[in-house]
């Protein structure tokens, strides 16, 4: 089997991060914004995996493991916030969340 230069993988990761970032900016639905956030995290994971692999070390995978754990915690908190927001506003429109705006 052949070998691929690592920057191809970094390109894939950047592409995922790009799509996620654009999604966070242009969508209004808080849940979909959250999904796009996960997309960004996933892109970073791909880059970590590829660079760790290219360096021949496992530490990239260790970092990815930690990122996944933090993403799980973040999902729990994020969904709880969205639930409690939905309870008071009957929508998850991020534009209508203006309690702390001034």
């Amino acid at each position: 089997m052949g070998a691929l230069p690592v920057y191809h993988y970094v390109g894939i990761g950047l592409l995922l991060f790009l799509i996620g970032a654009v999604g966070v900016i242009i969508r209004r639905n808080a849940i979909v914004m959250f999904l796009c956030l996960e997309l960004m995290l996933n892109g970073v994971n791909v880059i970590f995996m590829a660079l760790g692999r290219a360096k021949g070390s496992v530490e990239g995978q260790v970092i990815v493991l930690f990122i996944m754990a933090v993403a799980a915690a973040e999902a729990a908190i994020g969904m709880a916030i969205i639930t409690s927001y939905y309870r008071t506003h009957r929508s998850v429109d991020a534009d209508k969340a203006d309690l702390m705006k001034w």
Partner: protein
Amino acid sequence: MSALLPYMPYALLLLFTLAMAVTGLGVVVLPNPVHAALALLANLVVTSLLYMVMLGAPFMAMVQLIVYAGAILVFILFVIMLMNLRKEEYTFKVWPMRALLGIGAAIVFFFQIFALNPHFVGKAMLGAQGPDAKVLADLIFSKYLLPFELVSLLIFAAAVGAIALAKKRA
């Protein structure tokens, strides 16, 4: 056939990139949140396949499937289901500003792709077996023991916080 063999990795890479782009754009573009979540699921599965096939990390591929596709996504789908959301109505009032910001971010990140140094570090082998879970465990439970324990604390705090936030006020 054997003359085509050197191009195999590039064909696979192209396939993976296309799959990633299509499913990722699905998350951004689809108006129904359930469809967006399912597109994210497809994206996560493709990522898992990338880890398995291209980066020689079957353990991480499995963790990716179990944690992301199995836990986080089911969780998000449950919340969407409970809220019974309608389709998002794209408003065109705020559209120009938002689109401008989005396009700006897209341009910045797109040129970052070209700013990559092609001669940077080594090559990632295709399909070759990477370090297995045992090596990973050795590292986590020695050098990264403190971060590991801190992450467990973080998850505990997140669980308690989620209950406190989502609980119905009496």
